């Protein structure tokens, strides 16, 4: 191969592409063209992502009975929501599951993060991998396997089975977020606390926990959002009388999409957005 490369440099000069020095104006024109393309690409992607949501939000304020028809601004569907007993009940189940699963998963996830980041123990790597599985495996697999588990052990499906399942996948998300914070934390801070006379518990309470707190809170907000929005897994493990909001919305759609669905979706969207923004702001601290 070396011979060919050597011969290529010996080609008559007429076969070479003549060299043109780059001119300043040509470079500038190309840069301007590139930046214009990039701008339009970015706008296109944002439209693709958010246009459906914008449409949904706009039509939730339409007075018309049919979706996709604009009949003047109205909060009629929001009022109708408040009167929908089944929907309110589903919302309360969702809230109950989200609050409790968040609390439990935050405590367990934080402890798991501490164990993995601070201690060396037998089976640590296995535990590490197993903990993150719920993030990676498809929802449908998680849903089927937990359903199978409950059926095998004859556990009656109820809001408690939803709670257990939500805790299971939320631990992973809390652990990831808390661990990132913990990895940034200088471990000599804990030694400094001990050096100044703090026992292990006091050092944790006065030093480690306050430093981890933004990570813990943002992990908890993430868990809360995930729990509130989850449909696939919940759909499988929900029992009669324990319908959550996303499951209820799904069953409403089966009878045709009404603007009421638009309204409830807009509210959920607003709630989730607020939580995610708070979570991101806390992680930045």
């Amino acid at each position: 191969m070396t011979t060919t490369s050597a011969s290529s440099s010996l080609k008559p000069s007429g076969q070479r592409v003549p060299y043109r020095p780059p001119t300043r104006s040509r470079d500038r024109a190309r840069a301007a063209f590139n930046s214009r393309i990039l701008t339009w690409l970015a706008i296109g992607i944002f439209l693709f992502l958010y246009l459906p949501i914008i449409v949904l939000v706009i039509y939730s304020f339409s007075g018309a009975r049919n979706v996709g028809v604009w009949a003047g601004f109205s909060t009629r569907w929001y009022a109708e929501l408040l009167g929908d007993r089944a929907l309110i009940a589903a919302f309360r189940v969702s809230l109950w599951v989200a609050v409790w699963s968040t609390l439990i998963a935050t405590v367990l996830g934080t402890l798991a993060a501490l164990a993995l980041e601070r201690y060396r123990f037998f089976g640590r790597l296995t535990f590490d991998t197993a903990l993150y599985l719920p993030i990676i495996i498809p929802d449908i697999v998680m849903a089927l396997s937990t359903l199978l588990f409950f059926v095998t052990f004859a556990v009656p499906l109820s809001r408690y089975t939803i709670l257990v399942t939500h805790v299971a996948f939320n631990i992973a998300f809390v652990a990831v977020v808390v661990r990132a914070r913990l990895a940034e934390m200088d471990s000599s801070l804990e030694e400094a606390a001990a050096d100044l006379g703090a026992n292990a518990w006091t050092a944790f309470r006065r030093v480690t926990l306050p430093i981890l707190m933004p990570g813990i809170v943002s992990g908890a907000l993430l868990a809360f959002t995930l729990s509130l929005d989850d449909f696939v897994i919940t759909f499988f493990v929900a029992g009669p009388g324990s319908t959550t909001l996303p499951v209820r919305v799904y069953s409403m759609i089966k009878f045709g999409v009404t603007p009421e669905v638009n309204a409830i979706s807009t509210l959920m969207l607003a709630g989730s957005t607020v939580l995610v923004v708070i979570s991101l702001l806390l992680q930045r601290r």
Partner: protein
Amino acid sequence: MTDSFRVELLDVTKRFGDAVAVDALTLQVRDGEFFSLIGPSGCGKTTTLRMIAGFEQPTDGRIFIGGQPVEGIPAHQRPVNTVFQNYALFPHMTVAQNVAFGLEMQKVAAPDIKQRVAEALELVRLPQMAERKPRQLSGGQQQRVALARALVNRPQVLLLDEPLGALDLKLRRAMQIELKHIQSDVGITFIYVTHDQEEAMTMSDRIGIMNEGILQQVGSPHEVYEKPVNRFVADFIGETNFLPATVARLETEEDYPMVALQGGVKVLAANEGHDLQLGRPVTLTIRPERINLYPQGEVDVLKAESGLEAEELARILGAKLPGAVDMKEFLLAEPENVVLDGVLEEAFYIGTDTRFRVMLEGGASLVVRQQNYGSRYDMPFDVGSHVYVQWAAENAQILIE
């Protein structure tokens, strides 16, 4: 075990798996002393400090603090405090809260805490920074907060783990002096770990030099510089020349043994308690600044191109004016002087002094430092010229490998 030792380590060994970090270390640190542990990275100095603090447990041996054995006592119950290399200030607390932390742990009453925190910040000259967060301070200020946070607890011993390592050279020099002043003000025993021998020399009452887990020598800065016990210490502290030699005579009129250098040149050398036998290979160590260079041959005092005034040169050489002096004869008038022929190979002017590389008769090579007093007094030596190389026998020390 005597009470006058603030910290005592007896035969302390620390192993990490198969690696021996600290090997049978025995060390006594006196009350109120500024003691430095120095050595290259990985020599075991930080591990030793961490064992005194209680962050590591010795594999073997005993540690006493204030006369009390401390095995099994966790770090938070030991009467010592540490200034960490990266300061380890609590980022979520203010400076005042950081300094108050140790006192709160000791359950000191709130008004006392307030007063002692103010005093501690006064000591490190940062009283106006009390309400700042650590990240709003410069590196030097953070370092002082770390010092105040440790000292406010009035520990029996303050441990410092390369606390000046992250500061720039000028600030480091200033902090060295300040640390030394603070130490003599508070009178607390300091154990200071560093790899910087100059820093240790500047501040310490005594220095312990470690290499590969073994304590090589303990002594005052003067002792470890003037009388290093082995080649490692001589090399690690300051700059030196090593000359291979063999023992040629054990007894001489001048009370110094005589050794033969490369090429058979015989010179007197000082022996600090080493057991010498005739023919034994040894190493001579001579500090570059202890070697002097003189022009060769007869020096006419009045015409000498030394750059000196004739009276001045005559005074130095002990000659009577007017007159000529044979340099070698003059130098050898002092029986303990070693005078050898040499050729100047290189000269580097570095401001405070000039460094020469000299090839000795017999083929050995030496680095020589001559202080520059000012152009009028400096001997103008040319590269390639023949010179007399002189040192006093007491400055050439015999080391056993």
